[in-house]
């Protein structure tokens, strides 16, 4: 792994930081239920809201990292997003693409595997969180603002139990 990881602790508040951003631990139960809550609120745009929040939040974290570490090539920048995903415990992905879009294969997935552990296989894709994450990763990789890419989950690990596939296109 090429990512520089600076874990720190505020000795007064006991808040934890990773590369200067406050982080907190939860379990697959939490993200599975947050995902389900977003699904149950589809009538008010719950899944899209979750995607948007993840994209905006992760864009800020990833962009901060590449700026501070002087990473300029799309490959380097994309790798930052891919490695951060694993550091956060969200799983393992393979990324292929260009500025105009690409494809991401999810080999392991906290959210999908967590969903299956909790409720079994689902009938439709549920990984809205990772759609937002990938949109942020591509935007930072190609030096664009958030909301530059649209990501759809074409194949779902929560459904098929094996791998997830995400298609990335320019908005």
């Amino acid at each position, binding site marked *: 792994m090429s990512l520089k*990881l600076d*874990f720190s*602790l505020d000795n*007064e*508040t*006991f*808040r*934890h930081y*990773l590369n200067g*951003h*406050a*982080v*907190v*631990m*939860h*379990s*697959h*139960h*939490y*993200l599975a*239920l*947050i995902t389900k*809550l*977003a699904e*149950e*609120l589809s009538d*008010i*745009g*719950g899944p899209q*809201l*979750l995607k*948007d*929040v*993840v994209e*905006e*939040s*992760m864009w*800020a*974290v990833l962009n901060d990292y590449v700026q501070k570490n002087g990473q300029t090539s799309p490959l380097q920048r994309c790798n930052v997003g891919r490695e951060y*995903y*694993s*550091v*956060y*415990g*969200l*799983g*393992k*992905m393979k990324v292929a693409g260009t500025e105009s879009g690409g494809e991401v294969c999810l*080999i*392991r997935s*906290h959210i999908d*595997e*967590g969903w299956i*552990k909790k409720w079994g296989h689902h009938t439709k894709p549920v990984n809205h969180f990772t759609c937002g994450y990938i949109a942020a990763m591509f935007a930072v990789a190609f030096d664009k603002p958030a909301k530059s890419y649209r990501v759809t989950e074409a194949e779902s690990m929560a459904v098929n139990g094996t791998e997830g596939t995400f298609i990335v296109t320019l908005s």
Partner: protein
Amino acid sequence: MTVMRDTVVKSLAKINIQGDENGLIPEYDVLVNLLPASLLNTFSERIMAAAPPDKKSKVADGLVRAAYECGYHTGCGIITSDVFNDVVLPMVTEGEKDILRGAFAAFTAWGWAKSGIVQLKEGERMVIRANDYYEADSGGEGLRAYMLRGLCQAFFDLTYADPYPDGMNTFVCHQTKGIEAGDPHGEFVVTRK
């Protein structure tokens, strides 16, 4: 000896976790994730803001429920973990009360909230005071510590309800004060449902 909170907090706070070769964090009998606190706060605020008035309580309940189930299952993994056995159990002399004290020390050490028990009627009622918690930064109006409500309820269920996994939903937690609402600290009261 009873549980020496500061010793436990300092020991547990040193533990850093990150993904393994599969990008997963299998710990405490669950898959753990490590996420930016700002992301979680922003989601709570946006989903609450998006909900129409007649759905806001349902959304709030959903946020609390996510934290509750996370806390109940993960909390069981924590209090039966090797690290808890090594650090906390040697100090336990007052049974369940000390397990609960140790659990709230872990609560602080892992950055959920700088918090502790201020009143305890065993098996009946508990008051938690939190002097710092990440949901205090959420930016919304009113009391917004959904995660803390869920976790306080979960830890009390684990300690005083039927043994895991049969003791869910025995107690309930209400937030009575919040830093996010202008109070000097957060306060959480757990009572039987």
